[in-house]
């Protein structure tokens, strides 16, 4: 009896948690899903144009970073304006979960499937299933390792190009010493792979020394801070911090602050960050970060445009990269920062 009761309790709890989770995840997009479908069926014969385009989006994490928040918001707003129905699910750091979520969306027969993969690999089966079901497969944010025939289009950041921008900038600075600390992101994510590769290649080509190169689990600010503090304590000399996101750059700065090491525009250590969140641009403006390379999160409008083209049976460019800028503390202005929405 007791056992039964406890089982019931646990089940109830799990169910309520799952229920909460789903509600939170999709409330922005699908509060009236059933409503719409019912209506759609009723009016199908009369007017097919009323049927909304359903787009399934496999997002990474709900609150991974400010960047991700802006990214999610961009989807919600752009899709809402375009009159698409958005089914967004979150992998919450779990690659396998993302894959099953994608398969679920294919089962639900969405019209388009947009994937922002936590990992670059392992998507072949999903892409094949989508292809068989006749659902266009669109990669966004991070490029996945798929052969060209398996996806319809992509709206991705070229992470290696981002890294190369930073490397070129560093080359132009012509520093006397180039001892570089690389704070990598989650091992195996395409952003980490691309940005790390750019710096590793750049260092080889220019004869720079990489004194530290490790990936921080979860792009974590605290881990980055502790790693830099450890380097300082053990007497490792470095002149450049190459942090693969804004948060890790901030963590590194914290560690240098605590040890009295100067950095930034007028300091001994140059700080390079990625993503270019608004708060990070403020740091660039204040001269704390030397360079922040943008990683554009505003995928929503681009994907809307892409889908509209596909709906109109127009041809689309398969491998389109998002335009991305970089912000140098020497040239940044207050206007640029103020214009930043995220």
């Amino acid at each position, binding site marked *: 009896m007791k056992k039964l009761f406890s089982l019931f309790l646990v089940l109830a709890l799990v169910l309520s948690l799952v229920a909460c989770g789903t509600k939170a995840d999709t409330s922005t997009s699908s509060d009236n899903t059933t409503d719409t479908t019912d209506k759609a069926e009723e009016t199908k014969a009369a007017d097919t144009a009323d049927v909304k385009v359903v787009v399934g989006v496999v997002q990474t994490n709900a*609150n991974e970073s400010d960047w991700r928040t802006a990214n999610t918001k961009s989807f919600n707003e752009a899709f809402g304006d375009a009159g698409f129905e958005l089914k967004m699910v979150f992998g919450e750091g779990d690659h396998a979960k993302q894959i099953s979520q994608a398969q679920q969306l294919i089962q639900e027969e969405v019209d388009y499937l947009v994937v922002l993969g936590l990992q670059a690999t392992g998507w072949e089966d999903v892409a094949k299933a989508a292809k068989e079901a006749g659902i266009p497969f669109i990669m966004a944010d991070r490029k996945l390792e798929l052969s060209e025939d398996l996806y319809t289009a992509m709206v991705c950041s070229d992470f290696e190009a981002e890294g190369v921008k930073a490397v070129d900038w560093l080359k132009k600075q012509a520093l006397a010493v180039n001892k570089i600390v690389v704070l990598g992101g989650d*091992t195996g994510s395409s952003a980490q792979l691309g940005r790390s590769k750019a710096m590793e290649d750049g260092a080889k080509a220019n004869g720079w020394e990489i004194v530290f190169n490790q990936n921080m689990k979860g792009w974590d600010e605290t881990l980055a801070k502790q790693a830099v503090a450890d380097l300082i304590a053990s007497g490792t000399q470095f002149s450049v911090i190459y942090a693969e996101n804004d948060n890790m750059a901030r963590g590194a700065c914290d560690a240098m602050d605590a040890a*009295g090491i100067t950095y930034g525009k007028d300091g001994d250590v140059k700080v390079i960050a990625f993503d270019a969140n608004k708060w990070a641009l403020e740091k660039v403006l204040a001269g704390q970060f030397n360079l922040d390379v943008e990683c554009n999160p505003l995928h929503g409008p681009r994907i809307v445009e892409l889908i509209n083209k596909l709906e109109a049976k127009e041809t689309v460019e398969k491998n389109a990269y998002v335009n991305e800028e970089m912000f140098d503390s020497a040239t940044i202005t207050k206007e640029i920062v103020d214009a930043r929405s995220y």
Partner: protein
Amino acid sequence: MTRNNNKLDTDRFASVLKALSRHRMFIPIAFLAFLLLINVFINPSFLRVSLGRDSTGSPVLIGNLINILNNATELVILTIGMTLVTASSRGQDISIGATVSIVGGVIMRVLCGNETQPTQLHAPILVALLLGCLAGIACGAFNGILVSKFNIQPMVATLILFTAGRSIGSMAMGGLKPKAAASFGYYGNFIPGFPVPTPILITIGAIVVTLFALKRTNLSLYTRAVGINDKASSLNGLNPALIKFLTFVILGLCVGIAGFVQSSRVQTVNPYTIVPSIEMDVILAVALGGNSLGGGKFNMTGSIVGAYTIQTLTSMLTTLNVNTNAVPVFKAVIIIILVAIQTPMLKSLFVKKVTLSNLTAGAGKERG
């Protein structure tokens, strides 16, 4: 005569060594010492602690040892709670990383409200600390009820919060990623003007309180009694369910304090990545401390030393700039060695060897 004395010395040395090797703290301390030695060997200035100044000019202590002591704070505090839970419930709580996330989420929400870049704190830090601890205790109590009242295995019971905790943490923050005002950072960094990192002081406080509690209450006796034989304990007037519940609540309090320190370190919390995989490090620390993960007797000092050992290892892998892909392998190999050497089989082999050398030394003396 001198020869004889030498023999006597070896004899005495051997017996001292034997007694030492039998001591329950021998292996945990030997390994910490071993790791520190390797570090000193690679980097002779490893143990050096210097007084520097931070960017605002306040004096601060800088050194690898300080970093290890500082960064081990969460690990040590969580290990204290985990040791008690392991002893009483004969299992481990795997939800602590996720519940730290919940605590962090609550603290950030209390301090920042709905703002992302608040210039001042929305509530006194003490309130945040208390609410954070309360959240931790609530999680501990939830796990404790499942384990003690409904007799669910600890790992299964805590799997629930393990799975859901980080999402709950995210919800607690209302989906925002705020950074609290700088004054909140004192608890995870330095109090301006005082050169010792605050987390070290918090750890010392936690250890002192723990040892005091173990000495001045029957927590230790009751926990062990229940962990070894709960039937007999209940016939001796103890309430095993209550004591198991109590240890989970204590772990919950530890989670609250650890979450507070952790979120103060960079004054922001990423619920999905805060203290990644810390539950594994904590369980390992308990094992390294010479505790059976099957419950019963426990060795609190051993656990704490175990936690510092793991932090030393982590720090060592950073300062040696081990290739990222090789880090888990490195850790795994060292862990295999650490755990294998503590198995009864190898332990008895070691003792036998010492005994043998002792015997030969004794035989030599007789002949001389």
